[in-house]
């Protein structure tokens, strides 16, 4: 019993602290606090996102409050709430789900926090600025490279294509796939023989799918287009067991330019990767966030920062900074990957 009262006393003293603690106490620090909320850290690229963003924020003397949401949209909203409780001034948000993230924008806005959409479009929302590459374009670029490959290696654009998609329901996966599908539709010689989603972007599942497809079509598949690098690795692993992991034999495209895949490209195992430039993405996002805070009282984005164009997101035309995407092939690794500092030369070649 006595112990229990001690316990209560301790808790009561907490209450005391709670009561006399003013919330604006938090806002005392003069540094601008920018919240950077990613959807997950469970892909290679996100380490870079974080690193570049923090570096850029430093330049603007902003304090970064970072978090990620384990690919879980509910969790992401909670993390946002936590960030707001921590007193962020502006938010850079990569939505887990592009379709349902508008609510997060609304929540932030209610607190007077402006939002920069990061990496993917936040649909149907009042988001202030987008900084993103165009996922649809990623798919389109992959498919165009494939068309080129057909011409080069097969002489004609005719053959079987398999589309290896990521997490079912993922909006980016969907956008990229649509980009691919559009190009395929434009080329009557191309036949889409398979279109398969993969739970959790699992590369081993992509490997299994590839094995099954190769058996089904008796190796008669000419190209695999994958929604990300991990999936492409699974495809390459499967092809390797038939000694078909070579640009000359089968076209494989991935996206993210993970180190291993860039290496595959260098070794001639994989045809191309799409490099979604992360550094400019992160830097531009930091820049936009900074401007949005500094020019808090201005409402017209045109007066605050430079952007490329306005993109309609279902609710309004959002001022959007588009960051470039590049095709990575055997010939341009130096230029696209190494010079940009994305991967080191010695990591790729040895």
């Amino acid at each position, binding site marked *: *019993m006595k*112990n*229990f009262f001690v*316990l*209560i006393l*301790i*808790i009561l003293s*907490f*209450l005391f*602290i*709670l*009561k006399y*603690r003013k*919330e604006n*106490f*938090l806002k005392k620090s003069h540094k601008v606090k920018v919240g950077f909320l990613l959807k*997950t*850290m*469970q892909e290679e690229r996100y380490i870079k996102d974080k690193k570049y963003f923090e570096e850029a924020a430093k330049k603007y003397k902003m304090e970064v*409050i*970072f*978090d*990620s949401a*384990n690919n*879980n*949209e*509910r*969790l992401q*909203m*909670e*993390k946002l*709430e*936590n960030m*707001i*409780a*921590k*007193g962020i001034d502006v938010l850079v948000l990569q939505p887990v*789900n*592009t*379709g*349902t993230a*508008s*609510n997060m924008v*609304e929540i932030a806005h209610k607190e007077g926090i402006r939002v920069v959409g990061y990496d993917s479009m936040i*649909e*149907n929302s009042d988001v202030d600025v987008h900084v993103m590459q165009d996922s649809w374009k990623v798919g389109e670029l992959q498919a165009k490279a494939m068309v080129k490959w057909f011409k080069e290696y097969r002489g004609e654009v005719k053959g079987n294509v398999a589309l290896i998609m990521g*997490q*079912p*329901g*993922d*909006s980016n996966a*969907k956008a990229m796939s649509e980009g691919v599908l559009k190009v395929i539709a434009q080329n009557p010689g191309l036949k889409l023989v398979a279109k398969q*989603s993969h739970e959790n972007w699992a590369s081993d599942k992509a490997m299994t799918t590839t094995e099954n497809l190769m058996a089904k079509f008796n190796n008669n598949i000419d190209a695999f287009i994958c929604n990300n690098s991990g999936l492409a690795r699974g495809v390459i692993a499967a092809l390797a067991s038939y000694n078909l992991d070579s640009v000359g034999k089968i076209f494989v495209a991935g996206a993210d330019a993970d180190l291993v895949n860039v290496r595959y490209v260098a070794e001639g195992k994989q045809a191309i990767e799409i490099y979604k430039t992360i550094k400019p993405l992160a830097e531009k996002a930091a820049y936009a966030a900074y401007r949005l805070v500094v020019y808090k009282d201005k409402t017209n984005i045109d007066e605050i920062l430079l952007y490329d164009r306005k993109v309609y997101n*279902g609710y309004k035309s959002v001022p959007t900074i588009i960051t470039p995407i590049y095709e990575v092939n055997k010939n341009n690794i130096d230029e696209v990957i190494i010079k940009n500092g994305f991967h080191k030369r010695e990591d790729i070649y040895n």
Partner: protein
Amino acid sequence: MNKIVSSKRKKSKKIILEKFLKKNMNWIILLIMVLFLSLVTDSFLTARNLSNLIRQSTIVGIIAVGMTGVILLGGVDLSVGSIVGLAAVTVTLLMEKGLNEWISIILTLIFVGGLIGYWNGYWISRYKMEPFIVTLGMMTIARGLALTISKNSSIPVKNENFTKIAGSYISIKWSIILLSICLLYILIEVTYYAIKKREVLKNKSYIKNTLLKIFGILLLFLIFIMYKGIPNPVAIFSVIIIISIFILNNTKFGRDIYAAGGNREAARLSGIDIDKVHMKVFIITSVLAAFSGIILASRLNGASPSLGNMMELDAITAVAIGGTSLSGGIGGTFGTLLGIFIISILNNGMSLLGLPESYQLIIKGLIITMAVWGDIVSKNKKYHK
């Protein structure tokens, strides 16, 4: 003289401390977390953050209430996470089709919650199949259904009323009134006992619980009055918790659950319809999961088919940390509430601390293990078989 074979004898002071520590392991973990977070972060101990935290705990919390019943029966329900996703998608689709929000909600509760619960309950009670495997199957099926009907994409909500359901707060005035009523009720109860049944007041655990309740309500007072009032989902969750505690302790149905979970055969031979009890519990659990999905959709202003992924594990964890034995028969909702708070504070705290996801996972796993260990050690409970 007797020689002591046992080496367990220790000085009594030490034993008392040890006993105290063991008995209150979960509370101690909670306290340490709270202390630590208050000291290390500026934002943990603010009304706003605490209000958030409590609201955040409601989604899993609602599911965990149902899960408590399932686990009391010695079963487990792995399908709840997928039901959350399916319900969220369904309710938004129905509204998109132009249905009124309440009709959509009711249809979802019946057709997602009710039917899936019935399916689970059917195989489990009719064919005595393991709940683990039946609900594992349903977990897969429901996720597939969610993907199918949503055509793999997320669905926005345009209905303002729907958004308000989970998004708004009970005004501060009403919050004060409601909380005061609760407080009053407890005080009346105590007075009643003081007058009519003195012996109850001598019961240590009754006193402990009452103090705890009063303290809890005062805390809620502080938090919610300082920040916007009671969030709607919290109010809903509170009602669910209270009802579930009441059902488990004060109704025949609740008794049947404990009996069926404690000794299935004895319960059957006492005339209790085990199958019906299972059926009901699984239906209620699914309906609660569907309800949780609806609230989530309202909070998120939309739904996507992957919502609720892995939530079943969070719910089970909360129940287990809360001291309900996974082999059935022992435990209850009050413990689950504690479990929910431990997990929520943990998640909230680590996020405030800005720990990377990978560390968060490690720490979370460790704390789960420790909390359940504490519970087991304290009550000398063991899993059998």
